[in-house]
């Protein structure tokens, strides 16, 4: 084995370098797009921040749907938990430090992820889907009725976050919120890249492809999925908290079935099982929504539906998946 180990160590280091390079490219692309957004659309930073927050939700959904194969239509519950968690902390408990609010959102999201995971993973197939839809409706009704805490259908207002680290005030143009969001997204992205490539991530991909095989290897399917649900909850919760911090209001729409379904549309549009797909899908969808609903708000739902049908029929791998497959094919033709 001594002979092997030399070349093995070589390949280990070169692998690592290749991976780091790819991650660095990913981070640079996100940052470059972030700067471009800041420069090109200075009056639209609120929209861009919203895209960032929703991107966290879609990344979070990708973890359970794309990597673990759990189809859910109730994922906004995790996002909403983070948003209300951060919002209630600020409005009722005076926790107005944005980083602390973010932490509260992450914890609230993780707890919601744990609960959702335990409930949703109880069944498979159709009953699983029913559970996920029931969860989001239940959460929506609960938030609606607990209006003393959540503001009910009027929304939760009175969220006044302090300056970030006591230095950067949240301004009227949303510049601070935008930068805060992009930094949060980059940090999350780097962490998630690690997780999906780790042994744990490999285990999750294995579960998606064949849970029976994982059990026959002595792996715990349920325990692994619950852990992934908690991580997913943390990510979605961070997105919710970002939304609460940047808009300073939390509405019932953050706990809606529509948001859950739209998140799934974004993920599938971009391509499941890839973090880049999740990001690409979110940006494309929300940009499209902004353009179309400004032109004709009546038909927005129709267009989402048509878009979804089109993706299923013509690009089942999503935008990123189709692009990747295209370049792989080209790469093979011209090595």
């Amino acid at each position, binding site marked *: 084995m001594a002979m092997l180990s030399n070349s093995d160590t070589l390949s280990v280091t070169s*692998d*690592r370098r290749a991976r780091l390079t790819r991650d660095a490219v990913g981070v640079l692309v996100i940052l470059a797009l972030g700067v471009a957004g800041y420069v090109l659309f200075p009056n639209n930073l609120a929209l861009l921040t919203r895209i960032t927050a929703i991107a966290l939700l879609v990344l979070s959904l990708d973890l359970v749907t794309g990597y673990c194969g759990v189809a859910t239509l109730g994922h906004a519950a995790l996002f909403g938990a983070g948003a209300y968690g951060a919002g209630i902390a600020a409005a009722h408990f005076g926790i107005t430090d944005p980083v602390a609010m973010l932490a509260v959102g992450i914890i609230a999201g993780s707890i919601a992820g744990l609960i959702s995971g335990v409930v949703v993973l109880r069944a498979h197939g159709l009953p699983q889907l029913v559970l996920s839809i029931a969860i989001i409706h239940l959460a929506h009704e609960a938030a609606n009725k607990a209006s003393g805490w959540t503001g009910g259908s009027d929304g939760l207002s009175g969220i006044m976050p302090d300056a970030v680290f006591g230095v950067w005030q949240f301004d009227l143009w949303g510049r601070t919120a935008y930068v805060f969001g992009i930094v949060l997204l980059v940090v999350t992205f780097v962490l998630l890249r690690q*997780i999906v490539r*780790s*042994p744990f*991530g490999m*285990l999750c991909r294995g579960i998606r*492809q064949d849970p029976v095989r994982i059990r*026959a*290897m002595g792996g715990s399917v349920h325990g692994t999925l619950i852990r992934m649900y908690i991580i997913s909850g943390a990510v979605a919760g961070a997105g919710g908290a970002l939304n609460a911090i940047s808009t300073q209001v939390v509405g019932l729409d953050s706990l809606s079935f529509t948001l859950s379904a739209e998140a799934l549309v974004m993920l599938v549009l971009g391509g499941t099982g890839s973090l880049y797909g999740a990001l690409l899908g979110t940006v494309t969808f929300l940009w499209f929504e902004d353009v179309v609903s400004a032109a004709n708000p009546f038909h927005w739902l129709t267009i989402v539906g048509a878009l979804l049908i089109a993706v299923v029929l013509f690009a089942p791998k999503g935008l990123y998946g189709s692009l990747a497959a295209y370049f792989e094919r080209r790469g093979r033709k011209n090595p």
Partner: protein
Amino acid sequence: MSAIFDVRNLKKTFGGLVVTNDVSLSMAPGDRVALIGPNGAGKTTFVNLVTGNILPNAGSVMLGGQDVTRLGPTERVRRGLVRSFQVTRLFSEMTPEEHVALAILQREGRSGKMFASHRAMPDVMEEGHTLLSRLGIAHLARHRVSEIAYGQQRLLELSLALALKPKVLLLDEPAAGVPQSDTARIEQAIADLPSDLAVLMIEHDMDLVFRFAKRVVVLAAGEIIFDGSPDAVTKDVRVRQAYLGSYADARSVA
């Protein structure tokens, strides 16, 4: 030598139908046992009972001196009872390298690690590489499973089982569906299995059974009707009766 694997008086009924009746089977480390029987003899049920996928109505399964009768399949694997599948069950989008690494990490309880890649773990990479080379598929380590030939997938199935370092290995028709040209390779791999490992092979191919097994167990209608040497099995009256009229009649058993 004391038994590493001991099945005692196992019984399973589905409704009123008795599918496994009073089955007992004991194996010591290093044993090479073949389990044969005509179609519908209850071999699949037996495998499912032993691996913990279904629970017996009566009887017990002992593994290394411990009672595992009430434990689930996952727990039994962790205690060293590993099976291979008759129809290959692999992760089609993953590479052999990832398969083996996952199994090694799973065995060592490291599969939950979140902030390290298996490629950055020299011990795992080396063990995996050694294992794949031993089965002659190291050159495919980084191809997707969906891209490699079925015979090689069977070898990967075998290396996956070995990566778990079992004490008892259940091989469910390891050469099923493999083209003739590749069976020698698989048979060699089985012959090279660690000598302290107890191997129970469920097999139809009698040639393979006779080359592999030091002991043959015959299951018919849910009961063990023969347990002895390969030489004696063909001469046994009950075995001949059990197989009479079935395909094996025309072959070496008859």
